[in-house]
């Protein structure tokens, strides 16, 4: 059989790696890869020979949307967060996303000329009981935990801002389960328009990833007043 000719196999493997093996010949080679261990080994050998060429390329950082997209496709993210469209008053995914909870965030935007710049968000559950009260001054967030919170000893609640441009959520820190806490909007995110806030349930210490790793409990559009 002609495929027993190692020189021919080498040639086919290389053309396959380069992408210059096309059409029926490429398909025949793919079939051969399944049936012949020597063909597979030949291909792997040439991959080891040639791929250092690619390792020599300088790095190009992909956009953050790529990592976000990968996680979405692997089912690690709540689709509702990814598909979030803040301008719509009614969002079909909302009920599914919120599961048994409902979040209401009310933001009071101050006049830019006002001497005291203040925004307030109230996060409530389905029974309209407030869990957190968030007072925003500039990039500083003063978060007050209220009595209605269901305490979690083995988890943390993490607060996220969802940018209007659809880019991945940005962590604003862990929410207190009692008392109050000061959080800070990251400097890099201070100019990003917030479409909404989200609260996720995370392992102690917060999400190990740069986006929510646990269940997103609350998502809502922001009502601008």
């Amino acid at each position, binding site marked *: 059989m002609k495929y027993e000719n190692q020189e021919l196999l080498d040639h086919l493997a290389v*053309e396959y*790696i380069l*992408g210059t093996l096309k059409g029926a010949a490429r398909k025949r080679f793919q079939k051969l890869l399944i049936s012949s261990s020597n063909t597979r080994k030949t291909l792997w050998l040439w991959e080891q*020979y040639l*791929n*250092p060429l*690619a390792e020599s390329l300088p*790095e190009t950082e992909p956009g953050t949307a790529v990592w976000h997209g990968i996680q979405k496709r692997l089912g690690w993210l709540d689709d509702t967060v990814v598909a979030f469209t803040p301008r719509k008053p009614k969002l079909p995914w909302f009920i599914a996303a919120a599961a048994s909870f409902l979040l209401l965030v009310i933001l009071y935007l101050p006049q830019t000329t006002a001497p005291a710049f203040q925004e307030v968000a109230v996060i409530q559950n389905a029974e309209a009981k407030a869990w957190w009260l968030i007072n925003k001054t500039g990039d500083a967030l003063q978060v007050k935990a209220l009595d209605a919170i269901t305490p979690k000893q083995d988890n943390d609640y993490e607060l996220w801002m969802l940018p209007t441009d659809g880019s991945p959520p940005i962590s604003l820190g862990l929410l207190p389960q009692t008392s109050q806490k000061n959080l800070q909007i990251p400097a890099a995110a201070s100019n990003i328009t917030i479409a909404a806030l989200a609260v996720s349930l995370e392992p102690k210490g917060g999400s190990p990833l740069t986006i929510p790793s646990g269940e997103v409990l609350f998502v809502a559009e922001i009502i601008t007043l």
Partner: protein
Amino acid sequence: MEQSQQQLLQWLYATSQGNKEAFANLYKATSGKLFSVCIQLLRRNDWAEDVLQDAYVKIWHNAGEYHADKGNVMTWMISITRYRALDLLKSRRVKLEQTDSEAQINDQASAEALTGEQLGLVREKVKLDDCMSVLSEDHRISIQLAYFNGLSHQEITEHTGTALGSVKSWIRRGLVQLKRCLES
């Protein structure tokens, strides 16, 4: 950021066990390189991002199938990425749509031909560099155009202004020579 093979192997192994954090680390360490591979072949940012996503989804699912016979971790990941990019090139007939960036391709292709040696300065010297440099310029450029840019024999012909038969034999003879050098 250059990562040691051992570190990549640990992350890949943990990935095969379902460890998301390890996969995130693997992505962080390798995506810059793989994205360059995509960009070089596809010339379009959106397609390059699609392919990169496909590649990492496949890496996540197939991490357990990796073994040392397939080369080091980076080699294996580059292969996954390249084959996906080549599939996309074929299915979307990207070459027909590239006419507007033909000049750019030529520029970059020339640049690559020139930077073959220079690239060796910014990374660990591998045997491949030495062996590539032994090849004649025609052989080397033909291989680089096919490998980096995904150009077909015909397109290489147009780029280099030589006959189709010559290009095919350049690649063939160049690779025979390359193999002999790599195995010596």
